[in-house]
């Protein structure tokens, strides 16, 4: 039973990690219908920025709390700036292009950003400063759940609650939903669609950056390539839950995380990804738009 709980907890923490990245995917997909392959790279850039800022601050002798706050803000600011710029350069000119063109552009952008960070910084793995210290009160259960797991989990929960509130009740959230559902009509009621799309990229990127900071601190290292696998997994999770749906992305992430964890624990970690992808295929077989996705209604 202990073993089950341990695996369950690692599944949850893995799921929470995926969720932070998957939210950005799902928001961008929801609004412009694009699989933003560069999203994993935004996450990586967020992690790298927080690494640089945190290290500089710690060398300059700032206290831990200030380091965490400042590096988090810096990561979010710069990742958002990258997200905003990427949208303007690589996707905006392609809004009326054939459907696959933005996808290729996104793949190109992803390759470009990886190599940009490789050249601007280093190909080596770098130790990420430990921004989440071990909490004293966690010690009795530290063998099951670590402090960083808890922090990641709480962050994901808070982020999801705030995001749901924003999307449901605020002006910008309503504008986002309207733009996602009918872009032309959104323009006709006076929504500046370009600004809304930019805002979506900015919010999604900021979330990815926060994710980058937490995850890098959790596993203690970064390099320029960490975005790739994390991106693909988060994307899988987003599709699993029904891409375009925010609760769906979170649900999909937890299901994916738990599946991987239990597959590792009870079968073999050799095939953890095989399990993850098979689960995806299986779920889509029965629910072709994902768990919480809205079925595409077809007009005949």
């Amino acid at each position, binding site marked *: 039973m202990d073993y089950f709980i341990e695996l369950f907890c690692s599944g949850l923490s893995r799921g929470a990690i995926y969720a932070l990245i998957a939210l950005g995917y799902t928001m961008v997909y929801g609004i412009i*219908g694009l*699989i933003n392959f560069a999203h994993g790279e935004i996450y990586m*850039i967020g992690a*790298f*920025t927080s690494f*640089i*800022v945190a*290290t*500089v601050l*710690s*060398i300059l002798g700032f206290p831990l709390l200030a380091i965490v706050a400042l590096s988090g803000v*810096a990561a979010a600011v*710069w990742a958002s*700036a990258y997200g905003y*710029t990427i949208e303007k*350069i*690589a996707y905006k*000119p*392609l809004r009326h*292009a*054939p459907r*696959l*063109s*933005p*996808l*290729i*552009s996104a*793949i*190109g*952008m*992803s*390759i*470009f*950003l*990886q*190599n*940009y*960070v490789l*050249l*601007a*910084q280093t190909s080596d793995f*770098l130790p990420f400063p430990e921004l989440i210290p071990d909490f004293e009160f966690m010690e009795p259960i530290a063998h099951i759940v670590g402090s960083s797991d808890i922090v990641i989990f709480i962050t994901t929960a808070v982020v999801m609650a705030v995001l749901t509130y924003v999307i449901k009740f605020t002006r910008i959230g309503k504008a986002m939903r309207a733009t996602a559902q009918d872009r032309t009509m959104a323009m006709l009621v006076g929504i500046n669609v370009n600004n809304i799309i930019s805002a979506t990229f900015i919010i999604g990127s900021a979330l990815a950056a926060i994710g980058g900071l937490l995850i890098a601190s959790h596993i203690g290292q970064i390099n320029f390539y960490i975005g790739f696998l994390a991106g*693909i997994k988060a994307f*899988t999770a987003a*599709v699993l839950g029904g*891409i375009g749906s925010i609760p769906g992305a979170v649900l999909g992430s937890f299901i994916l995380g738990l599946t991987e964890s239990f597959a590792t624990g009870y079968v073999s970690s050799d*095939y953890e*990804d*095989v399990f993850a*992808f*098979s689960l*995806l*295929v299986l779920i*889509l*077989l029965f629910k*072709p*738009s*994902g768990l919480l996705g809205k079925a*595409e209604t077809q007009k*005949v």
Partner: protein
Amino acid sequence: MFSLKTLRTGVLISLWFVFLTFPLMVIKVDPLERIIQWRWKNALLVGIGTFLIYLVVQYLNYRKEHQPPAKVEDTKDQVSFIHKFIADPIQRKLLFGGLLVIAAIFPFVVSTYQTNIMITALMYVVLGLGLNIVVGMAGLLDLGFVAFYAVGAYSYALLNHHFGLGFWEVLPIGGGLAAIAGILLGFPVLRLRGDYLAIVTLGFGEIIRLVLENWSEFSKGPSGISNISRPGFLGMELSLEGSILYMYYIMIAFMIFTIFVVNRLQDSRLGRAWIALREDEIACQAMGIDKQKTKLAAFSLGAFWAGLMGVIFAAKTTFINPASFTFLESAIILSIVVLGGMGSIVGVIIGALVLILLPEYLRALSEYRMLAFGAILVAMMIFRPQGMIATVRRTYRFQKK
């Protein structure tokens, strides 16, 4: 040409990029030695570089806008130069004849290295044409095409390793197995549309690779299979140069065969069914097209070509391991199809030659080549989203008597 306002925007944009790249380009830290390196020169370079790129883009836009206003009336007849050129039967024969001669003597004029990379490029031409059936014609976005390539490659490697079967014997087997894999994948995913299909095919590609990686008893795992025989010529063993030459001609023949088949397919009942399916599934079903069979046919035919190329790939490198069949490979093949121009045969050929030869010739840039590759993909899509050679829709003209 450049107004003051353009210049001011240019300065602002370059300042934005200086800000954007600031942490990554300027600061470099060593967390253990606790050293901070400030590379201010990079900020300057980014600023100037962005400004120059901005001016170039503005200049290009300016030229585009100030061209004599496009003859709007007859733009429908505006077809790319290549298509116009091919349309004339004599010119077409001349062109194809010329290309064939160039292809035939190519290996004698250039070094073995050039021939070798040309073989790779030709393989990607065929792969691109195969994927074009699935993506371009039938409109099914497949992000795991490389799985079928892997099936072909491992068929040859394993059959050769265990049973000593030769290249020509395995070629049809490899293609067949890949086609079967295509059908197996096709069945469950027929109901899915668009991006859901894309992610499932991506997953399928990863599953195949992971199984090959982990099931060591079957596939020798990550260490791969080495010493795969090169194709023999009438039972003779060839030297390395000879065999590269031989491979080259096999690939030329293959490419011609593929072009021929794909071309015929396009005009066949099946080809039209695919195109119709791509445009409107429901209308298609209403017209009595069997959606299932048509989609499966697209998957299996595309996979068949990937399987054949897989066999050739294994024979060419003589060593394969699962690392050659990653998602990036699928992405590159897809890029070939889209970059060249979806559904266009000429486009796919040019796309493959550009995308495969480009990184090879960019070797001079060494570590910057993947950076350049990514940038070129983005730039190509921005400036020519329909691909280098857009498909020409068949047009029928109403003749007034």
